[in-house]
């Protein structure tokens, strides 16, 4: 991959103590930036990606040649306006786009670390990314933002570094991963691990990858990102390039064909072991438990302005779980806004062109940024 040469990567020399007890140092963190940091260095926004995202939030991803995962939201004139803001996004540790993950080569064996990679947490991901701010010389971020697992990182970041961001946008997320979500993640992991190619995680590029398992994991997960109504409207019982049922197990229905396609393109860009590690990190996320059962304590003394957003048809990270965050913040008198956006696009709404959602974020960020500047004068 010649593009790897162009990839922005910092090597974090400082030791990072992981939640599992292990310590890592001299590890790579891949990132990308959009827009320019202004002279006052007060316009930086750190964006956290979700389970299968990477650092390429905007424009065309140079590795996959496809649109960045948050291209609807990040770019010139968009919700996170890169004409105005300096947007930073890093690949999480555990990921497979240049950051320290199970796919990186162990110099001793010349093979991928695989399952010798330590189990990491959302807390570890956030602590690793914090180093990027020192490297980029940013004293204070204007905002941190992210959806789904990105939202969990937002919550953890504000909790770990209470005065580092003026604004926090946790979107379609939770403070405590639910049993249902752990169950779906376990389904995905079992699909991968029961693929014989997985080989206890010791596959490498030369051997066969557990593509089938990973594709099934993606198919199952993809269903959870959509709503029943959305699926029904888009596919219904439409047949795939045929006029009648074929009385077999080929993809008769469009929805089957669609899911198979989603599975097959996913394996080209994602590493099965990364999928195991990142879903595990999500399952372990319980900010409420980290603070002895009282989520409010996670945000004690915070001066950050929160804007929590959920979606009506998101049943994976439902409004009620997002509202729990709002309730915890109100209990300590934090500055918090909250809206549930009406859409039938399910959990995926935060990644899609949902005009109400995007315009509200854009206006919120722009107004808040100018209010902060006015008050300083």
């Amino acid at each position, binding site marked *: 991959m010649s593009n790897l040469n162009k990839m922005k990567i910092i090597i974090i020399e400082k030791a990072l103590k992981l939640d599992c007890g292990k310590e890592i140092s001299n590890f790579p963190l891949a990132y990308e930036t959009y827009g320019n940091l202004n002279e006052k260095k007060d316009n930086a926004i750190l964006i956290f990606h979700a389970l299968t995202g990477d650092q390429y939030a905007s424009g065309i991803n140079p590795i996959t040649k496809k649109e960045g995962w948050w291209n609807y939201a990040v770019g010139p004139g968009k919700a996170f306006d890169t004409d105005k803001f300096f947007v930073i996004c890093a690949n999480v540790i555990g990921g497979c786009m240049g950051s320290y993950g199970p796919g990186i080569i162990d110099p001793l064996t010349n093979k991928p670390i695989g399952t010798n990679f330590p189990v990491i947490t959302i807390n570890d991901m956030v602590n690793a990314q914090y180093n990027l701010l020192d490297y980029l010389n940013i004293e204070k971020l204007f905002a941190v933002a992210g959806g789904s697992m990105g939202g969990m990182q937002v919550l953890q970041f504000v909790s770990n570094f209470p005065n580092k961001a003026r604004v926090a946008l946790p979107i379609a997320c939770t403070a405590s991963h639910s049993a249902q979500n752990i169950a779906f993640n376990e389904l995905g992991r079992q699909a991968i691990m029961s693929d014989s190619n997985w080989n206890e995680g010791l596959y490498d590029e030369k051997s066969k990858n557990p593509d089938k398992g990973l594709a099934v994991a993606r198919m199952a997960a993809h269903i959870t990102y959509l709503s029943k109504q959305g699926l029904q409207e888009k596919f219904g019982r439409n047949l795939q390039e045929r006029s009648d049922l074929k009385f077999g197990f080929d993809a008769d229905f469009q929805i089957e064909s669609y899911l198979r396609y989603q599975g097959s393109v996913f394996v080209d860009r994602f590493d099965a072991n990364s999928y195991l590690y990142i879903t595990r990190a999500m399952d372990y996320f319980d900010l409420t438990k980290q603070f002895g059962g009282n989520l409010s304590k996670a945000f004690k003394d915070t001066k950050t302005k929160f804007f929590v957003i959920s979606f009506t048809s998101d049943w994976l990270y439902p409004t009620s779980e997002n509202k729990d965050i709002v309730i915890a913040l109100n209990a300590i008198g934090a500055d918090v806004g909250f809206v549930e956006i009406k859409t039938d696009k399910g959990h995926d709404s935060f990644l899609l062109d949902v005009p109400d959602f995007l315009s509200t974020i854009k206006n919120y960020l722009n107004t*808040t940024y100018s209010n902060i500047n006015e008050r300083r004068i």
Partner: protein
Amino acid sequence: MKEEFKVISKFIEEKSRVLDVGCGDGILMEYLSKNKVVDVRGLEISKEKVKKCLSKGLAVIEGDAENDLKQFPDLSFDYVILSQTLQAFMTPENVIENLLRVGKKVIVTIPNFGHWKVRLDLLLKGEMPVTKNLPYQWYNTPNLHMCTIQDFYNFCNNKRVNIYKSISLNGEKISNITTSNLKYKNLISELGIFLLEK
């Protein structure tokens, strides 16, 4: 800005913490944060209005007073405002109780059902009144519990809620309501604005 909001903002001391329940488009919130340097939060039931408020950077949460006031701790605000929505709740009694729990002081405004035009409508036409402040028909009104200024006075007396100030608003005319002019003000006021304390 509405006369009503001018009266409300005069009640509010600078640099205090305010919760605007049913904050609508956030017009009062904006005015208060700019002119009174208050730390102001809003609660609003309409998604459209919440989005408008958030677009202005206001700290507004989507929710309704009957369910969502619970999350605010006791006496966590210096003032809680409830502008012309008391009559729309299922249980106004509980809402008032919760407002007084959350706020050190509570400002409530009510459209006055005792206004002479309202009384006359029912008396002469024998129909449910439809006025500028109460523009709905009986079958589509969100106003479930209409009351008069006199009713609200009686309610506060029964509940041992102190009325610190009460203002009558009739068009643009602002005047004080006292125990001696209460019967008259109840006849001529379109709105009653009350500053309450437990």
